[in-house]
């Protein structure tokens, strides 16, 4: 042992503090890069201290370094190659890795408790056993849940909710069985119960996410983010490691807050989202009659004409922009508008896209300055004074029914007051309703012009006509 336990504990505390500073840095874009540096520094300290405190460099060291290098190279490669539109999938994938490594560490500690000072195999300290079970269970749930979220976001698995009879009962039963298994494990120290516990947890993660629809992914990703934190904290208690406990608590509460913000953005309770199956079929029947209503169909020239004569334009991007990768074309259009002395700003709804802040990242990628991008509360009053609202790939977040129709499933959800603009341009591929399966009255309004096309192509065409 090169480093005493007390000294290394102090260094772990230092890296915990650096992680707090890393999150603190994100309070503004200016300090954020420094924050990320603090995070990296904290990680380097934690890893170095671990090597020094284990000290006995057996032949295992070389393998530890090789595996570290392999993982690091893969991670770096992914980080450089990943397109910004794929961020939700990437984050979901990364969560699954945290979950799985928590499971591995928990199993490893269970099989070889001496290495972690937790007692002997078959005679592990009671508290450690409970902490280990929590770490393994939450880790396993995070892993399988994130895999499902990843598959849904990637489009490998259908984004529509998968529900079956007795689903909630089964989930509740499995959750109870986790507690029973932990109890049995503690009283008997039998490894069989530990394996069953891990297996049941994998199953829960899987069952928990399949009933949740694609557009509820912002909540799911935030929730899994939170779980990965609690898993890390559970392992932190087992290893008696301050850095892990602090980090786990930070990440856990961060994910929880994000889930809360996302739920609030949809005016739905957390349980409502988790129980899943939103807007699956009920609305389809009432839709038929509304399809008859006339819409004003426009082309790129009309849109260009409207915008050229406007003095201020507000852009409302949504998931459709991400799908069409239209952010660069959009910024070029805005540049042309600005050259004509037209004031342009962007309005972002909290749940636009598939993860928190998804639209902001895409606009930043397209070199849109962040001080032209506004949150819902900041910009909602400006719609009344704007000439044109350009809605690109968004739908439900503009639906006035959320304010006027108490029967609507999205009633009460905060929406952007797009209809207050003098005219509204809707870039959409078809009249089909959004994920909530509800019709948007805005399509049929007098001052709305529908532009049916791929978002990217339409934006490029408008630019040509400006």
């Amino acid at each position, binding site marked *: 042992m090169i480093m005493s336990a007390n000294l290394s504990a102090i260094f772990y505390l230092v890296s915990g503090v650096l992680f707090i500073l890393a999150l603190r840095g994100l309070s503004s874009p200016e300090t954020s890069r420094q*924050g990320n540096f603090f995070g990296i520094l904290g990680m380097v300290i934690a890893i170095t201290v671990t090597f020094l405190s284990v000290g006995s460099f057996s032949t295992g060291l070389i393998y530890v370094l090789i595996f570290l290098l392999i993982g690091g190279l893969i991670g770096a490669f*992914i*980080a450089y190659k990943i397109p910004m539109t794929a961020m939700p999938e990437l984050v979901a994938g990364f969560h699954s890795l945290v979950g799985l*490594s928590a499971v591995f560490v928990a199993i490893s500690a269970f099989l070889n408790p001496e290495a972690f000072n937790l007692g002997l195999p078959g005679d592990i300290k009671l508290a450690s056993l409970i902490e280990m079970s929590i770490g393994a269970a939450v880790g396993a749930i995070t892993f399988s849940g994130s895999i499902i979220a990843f598959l849904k976001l990637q489009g490998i698995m259908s984004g529509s909710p998968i529900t079956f009879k007795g689903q909630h009962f089964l989930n509740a039963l499995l959750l109870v069985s986790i507690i029973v298994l932990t109890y049995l494990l503690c009283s008997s120290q039998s490894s069989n119960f530990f394996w069953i516990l891990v297996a049941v947890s994998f199953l829960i993660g899987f069952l928990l996410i399949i009933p949740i629809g694609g557009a509820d992914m912002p909540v799911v990703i935030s929730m899994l983010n939170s779980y990965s934190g609690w898993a890390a904290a559970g392992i932190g208690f087992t*290893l008696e490691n301050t850095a892990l406990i602090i980090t786990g608590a930070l990440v856990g509460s961060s994910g929880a*807050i994000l889930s809360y913000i996302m739920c609030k953005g949809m005016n739905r309770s957390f349980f409502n989202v988790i129980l899943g199956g939103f807007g699956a079929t009920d609305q389809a029947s009432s839709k038929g009659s509304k399809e008859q209503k006339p819409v004003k169909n426009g082309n790129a020239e009309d849109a260009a004409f409207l915008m050229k004569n406007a003095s201020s334009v507000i852009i409302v991007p949504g998931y459709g922009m991400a799908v069409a990768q239209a952010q660069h074309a959009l910024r070029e259009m805005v540049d042309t508008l600005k050259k004509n002395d037209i004031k342009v700003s962007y309005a972002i709804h909290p749940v636009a896209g598939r993860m928190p802040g998804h639209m902001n990242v895409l606009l930043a990628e397209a070199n849109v300055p*962040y001080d032209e991008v506004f949150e819902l509360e900041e910009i909602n009053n400006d719609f009344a004074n704007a000439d044109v609202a350009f809605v690109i790939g968004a739908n439900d977040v503009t639906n006035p029914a959320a304010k006027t129709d108490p029967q609507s499933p999205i009633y009460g959800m905060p929406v952007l007051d797009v209809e207050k603009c003098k005219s509204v341009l809707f870039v959409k591929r078809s009249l089909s309703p959004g994920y909530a399966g509800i019709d948007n009255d805005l399509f049929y309004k007098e001052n709305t012009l529908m532009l049916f096309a791929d978002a990217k192509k339409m934006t490029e065409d408008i630019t040509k006509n400006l």
Partner: protein
Amino acid sequence: MEIDPFIFRLSIFILSIFIGYYVVWSVTPSLHTPLMSVTNAISSVIIVGAIIAGLAGSPDSIFTISNILGFLAISLAAVNIFGGFLVTQRMLQMYKKKKKDK
């Protein structure tokens, strides 16, 4: 009676939840995606446990299941650490202010 060290760890845990609560509320909404990727990266500090697991044991038996799981966990966490911090860096570099020269 002596206080169990567990209580101290629990105190750290609870206080950190509160710190996390206040720090995260001060994060600007436009940086929520980088927030997720950076929390993802820092939660991979779980690699600490993986390294301990990987280095455990005597020199002649470094391929017990416990060790191998440690090695695998090191790789998984390393993907996350490097991937998470680098992708956050890449994202944060894109956030720019309006140029003043216009």
